[in-house]
């Protein structure tokens, strides 16, 4: 009896340990999944013919508007974009090895230069049948099983060619690689890797910048913000999208040599390293500034500034770079002003009438000037103005 119970406990322990091991492997699998999926994508969809759509990595669903065309059934399948009503890819799942990747090549009506559209993870694209330049994109909504495998819908133009597109109801001029990521039912972001994105009649974002947009429940964008710097998380997403493009041979990850000549190891990604003073890195073939920043957990800005780099695409193999720890200058961090919320309002504010409080900085670019109070507020003032004075003007 006792030995049976002992055996049972041992079995439970073994099972628990196995489960832990499996979980640990699942975590690692995310990176492997991304590498393998991107490699398959490059193999399956490189040199896609103009006007075609390609099944890059499982799973991709296509809805066609023609009975003559079979929907996708397996990776490397290709069908004409003209017969596609909508295209959808599935989110990352390390357990099943899924991370949907699809490529579509579209020729906007007013140009002969084509535009590449990439769907990654949980993403959707539909085309308005009567307006070939009108796209409805959806991507990134609903999260992902892997932080390394984002869900986005990306647009890549031909080099130095601006594409005029209507995206989710808004006329936009895109140049280079632009990644769209849906945050929630009513929030969308446009991340610019290189080139630019201009909202017709609105803001322009350059490489390394992000626009935040607000959508209605049908996915139509109502308006965009002004451009802000991309955050570290957004930069990581951009790197993956750019990596996909480079695997397809659509862009070069670094000017020399082309990444296709010396591809990165597929299943053994570079180990992460720490940034800091005195840390240097020698640029290897296939690397770009984004990858290096990601590897060291720092920002492109920090590396660029420390090394006097003005064009982030202009780094060369063998170049030694100083790798400082960058501060994310995006707006993903909590606004500085929020720290004031709990700041100690002195119960005895200075009764000295001479001191005029200096303007207080309370938010990004926001200041409050308390000259009106004129430093006149002594202890014992009524709660209304006393509280205000303490909060605003101390």
């Amino acid at each position, binding site marked *: 009896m006792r030995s049976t119970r002992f055996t049972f406990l041992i079995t439970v322990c073994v099972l628990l340990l196995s489960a832990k091991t499996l979980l640990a492997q699942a975590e690692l699998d995310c990176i492997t999944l991304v590498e393998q999926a991107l490699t398959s994508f490059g193999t399956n969809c490189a040199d896609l013919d103009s006007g075609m759509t390609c099944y890059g990595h499982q799973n991709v669903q296509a809805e066609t508007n023609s009975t003559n065309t079979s929907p996708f059934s397996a990776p490397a399948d290709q069908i004409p974009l003209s017969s596609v009503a909508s295209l959808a890819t599935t989110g990352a799942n390390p357990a099943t090895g899924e991370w949907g990747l699809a490529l579509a090549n579209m020729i906007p009506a007013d140009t002969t230069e084509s535009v590449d559209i990439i769907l990654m993870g949980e993403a959707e694209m539909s085309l308005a049948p009567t307006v070939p330049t009108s796209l409805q994109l959806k991507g990134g909504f609903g999260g992902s099983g892997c932080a390394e495998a984002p869900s986005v819908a990306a647009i890549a133009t031909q080099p130095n060619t601006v594409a005029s597109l209507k995206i989710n109801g808004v006329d936009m001029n895109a140049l280079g690689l632009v990644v769209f990521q849906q*945050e*929630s*039912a*009513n*929030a969308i972001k446009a991340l610019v890797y290189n080139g630019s994105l201009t909202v017709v009649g*609105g*803001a322009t974002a350059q490489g390394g910048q992000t626009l*935040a*947009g*607000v*959508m*209605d*429940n049908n996915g139509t964008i*109502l*308006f*965009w*913000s*002004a451009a*802000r710097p991309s955050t570290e998380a957004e930069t990581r997403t951009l790197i993956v999208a750019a990596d996909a493009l480079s695997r397809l041979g659509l862009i070069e990850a670094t000017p020399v040599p082309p990444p296709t000549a010396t591809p990165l190891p597929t299943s053994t990604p570079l180990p992460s390293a720490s940034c800091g003073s005195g840390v240097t890195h020698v640029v290897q073939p296939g690397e770009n500034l984004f990858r290096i920043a990601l590897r060291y957990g720092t920002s492109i800005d920090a590396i660029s500034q420390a090394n006097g780099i003005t064009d982030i695409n202009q780094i060369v193999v063998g170049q030694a770079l100083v790798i400082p720890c960058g501060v994310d200058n995006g*707006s*993903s*961090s*909590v*606004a500085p*002003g*929020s720290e*004031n*919320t709990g*700041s100690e309002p002195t119960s005895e504010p200075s009764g000295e009438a001479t001191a005029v409080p200096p*303007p*207080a900085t*309370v*938010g*990004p*670019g*926001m*200041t*409050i*000037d*308390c*000259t*009106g*109070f*004129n430093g*006149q*507020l*002594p*202890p*014992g*003032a*009524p*709660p*209304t*103005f006393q*509280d*205000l004075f303490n*909060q*605003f*003007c101390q």
Partner: protein
Amino acid sequence: MSLRKFTLVTLLVMVAVGVFSLPIANAQPTLKDTVTNIINSIYATGDISVIDTQFAPTFVRHPAETDINALKISALSLRAAMPDLTAATEIVLVEGSFAAARVRLTGTFTGEFVSPNALPIAPNGKVIEFAVHLLYRFDEAGKIAEEWDGFDNLNFLGQLGVLPSLGFTPVAPMQYPAVVDVGMSPQNKQLVQGYFDAFNQANWGYIDTAFKADFAAHNPFGTLDRAGMSADLQRLRGALPDLTETVTQVVTEGNWTAALYTIKGTFTGQYVNADGSSIPPTGQPLDLPAITFFRFDEQGLVAESFEVYDSLSFLTQLGLITVTAPILEITPTPGA
């Protein structure tokens, strides 16, 4: 049968059978339900198609004097910043072609707060909670032709983390959600008008006769008792000797009365604190809309009031603070 006649008949029936002190939520079910449904659709589900179907094309939103499109933008920018936004319609009063609603909006600030062509405000992950007072005017076709907003930018921006926060949570009205008919709506309306008349004549004694001894006034800066509110108003009048509060619309139903009014005056006198110290005048004019809900007890005395106005506009108009905010446009206020 017109809505007004229907109300009259309903009231007469209720008088005939002596059913006072019963909820009259069904007295005007259509308009009341319509208002609640519209607020839910816009803010709680983000379905802005109701704006196209329920609002007149010539719709104007006060005090920003903006159109339907701006309403869509403001609703969806809230939902983009707070995807789990909920809207609790705490009070809805309907009288004639007007409806007044107090709505509590609650959501977690997990997405960026985006204004058109301005830098977004980064989320702080905190639960944001604020009360909005809305007054709607319906046109002959049953569409909303005008909306007046009672919205406090200081409270909102403070919670978003871009302005210091006073840390006040909106107080939930007692008796929520019922509007109870105590058979004195016309008198309540007269009493509210009487209060504003008394205020304009500096007749402070009126407060002691019309407001309950344990009365509580909830305003953007906190809660005051009866004596505290009276003292607060007198201090303000001392600083703005020409201060007036002009009522433009009153909506009354059951034991609640809502008033839309404009606070006007010039900061030409010393703001004298309780201990005799003072804030010097700035000479600046004040022109500020406000919406207050008054709750009456069964004796017809004011038991509680809920006032919402833009306290950021209040402070900036008085010249007490100057906010330089390149990241977003503060809603302009007439006369500011």
